[in-house]
């Protein structure tokens, strides 16, 4: 498996560390129902068989977090991008 890093170009997956599903929002600990929201945030996962948006960290390259969309059935990668809210320029 190779991941096309927007900053470094196409690199072997060995250069990247895996975090898991992207897009999880840390709940407000003071909001009502925070315990249940944290249970979902920390433990519960969709775990789809199909396209999954996930976080990879390019530890042996530019050391930036990437959002990778990858099909969990065949490891085919359809998009790699910097996370929303992060600087979108390489570097």
């Amino acid at each position, binding site marked *: *498996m190779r991941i096309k890093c927007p900053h470094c170009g196409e690199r*072997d*997956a*060995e250069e990247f560390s*895996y975090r*898991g*599903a992207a897009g999880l929002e840390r709940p407000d600990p003071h909001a009502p129902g925070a*315990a*249940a929201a944290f*249970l*979902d945030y*920390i*433990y*519960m*996962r*969709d*775990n*789809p*068989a199909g396209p*999954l948006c*996930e976080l990879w960290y390019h530890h042996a390259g530019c050391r930036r977090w990437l959002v990778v969309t*990858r099909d*969990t*059935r*065949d*490891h085919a990668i359809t998009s790699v991008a910097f996370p929303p809210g992060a600087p979108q320029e390489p570097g």
Partner: protein
Amino acid sequence: MRYSIFSLVGQALSGNRGWTPAWRRAAPKPHYDVVIVGGGGHGLATAYYLAKEHGLTDVAVVEKGYLGSGNVGRNTTIVRSNYLLPENIPFYEWSMKLWEGLEQELNFNVMVSQRGVLNLFHSDAQRNAFARRGNAMRLNGVDAELLDREEVRAMLPFADLDGARFPILGGLLQPRGGTVRHDAVAWGYARAADARGVDIVENCEVTGISVAGGRAHGIETSRGFIGADRVALSCAGNTSRVAAMAGLRLPIESHVMQAFVSEGLKPLIDNVVTFGAGHFYVSQSDKGGLVFGGDIDGYNSYAQRGNLPVMEDVVEGALALFPNLGRLRILRNWGGIVDMSMDGSPIIDKTPVDGLYLNGAWNYGGFKATPAAGWCFAHLIAKDVPHETAAAYRLDRFARGALIDEKGMGAQPNLH
């Protein structure tokens, strides 16, 4: 047909023309008391113990492929009960005891080989941790022996004991651990369950779970609807996918785990040996091939194949431990999909849906648990209360903060 030396000799003398199939090719009936989703070792063991221990014989096991095509035929065949935590030890020891009597129980040669499981340690800190684990095992009645370097040298004279980087200081040995021929476990349980009236339905993939009024009523399959009073999920690797059909969201990620077999060798490694400075474990099959594995690949996957970095890592561990394997060639490798849970421990429990039971989240350690998982899951399905040895494996433990984190890694499934 009962298997014995007499049946073997009789068949040999009559040209082996009288063997009968080990189980019927059952077509699904419209309704059962219990339908088990997943014809792996766990599902088949559950069906067997439901029939044998609880008298429930109106049971079907549905399997999307053929028996033995999933994880029961993809693991590295190791059985052991060398756990640390009080929630785990009694369960895995009960499994070990069931393994020890399984061949007589099933009248099937599953090749239980109690050749010993040796975990090597390479530092003083690791020795302390292994001594603690061994003490925990012995306090719970499990066999454990802490070996020093010379005792390990006597067992593994060809290991790199005195290497500068990872010197072997000793090992924790569980003499009763060992290996079991994994696909024979599926066949043995299938045959024994079938003989007690259980229907085993192969090539029958579940496509939906029928839930009405908060209660499960049956399953939709590629071979039509099958009604059931109780639906039991035993499909680790795909637990999230199947449970989602009943609206459940679980603390599980699916990951790919690779295993490897080398070309055949003369007898070399007598035990199961694990490397303590990396992730590598090995045993030698009766055909002579080394059967070995290491870490999971570390990313969510439903593809039953992995990637090269883990293969390289496993082989590096092998050579750090046994330099004499340097010119050995790998014959085959494959991947299996495992449920990695958020605390590295399994779930055997009821679900929020009435009549829907869950056995899953076995991480990379489900094979050794097969008999006890079947025993405890059958107990839960039949009596609606958990078996005492599996009482901690509850689905709500994540909400209660009662995690069973054997490795202390936290909610990061690819680190367990």
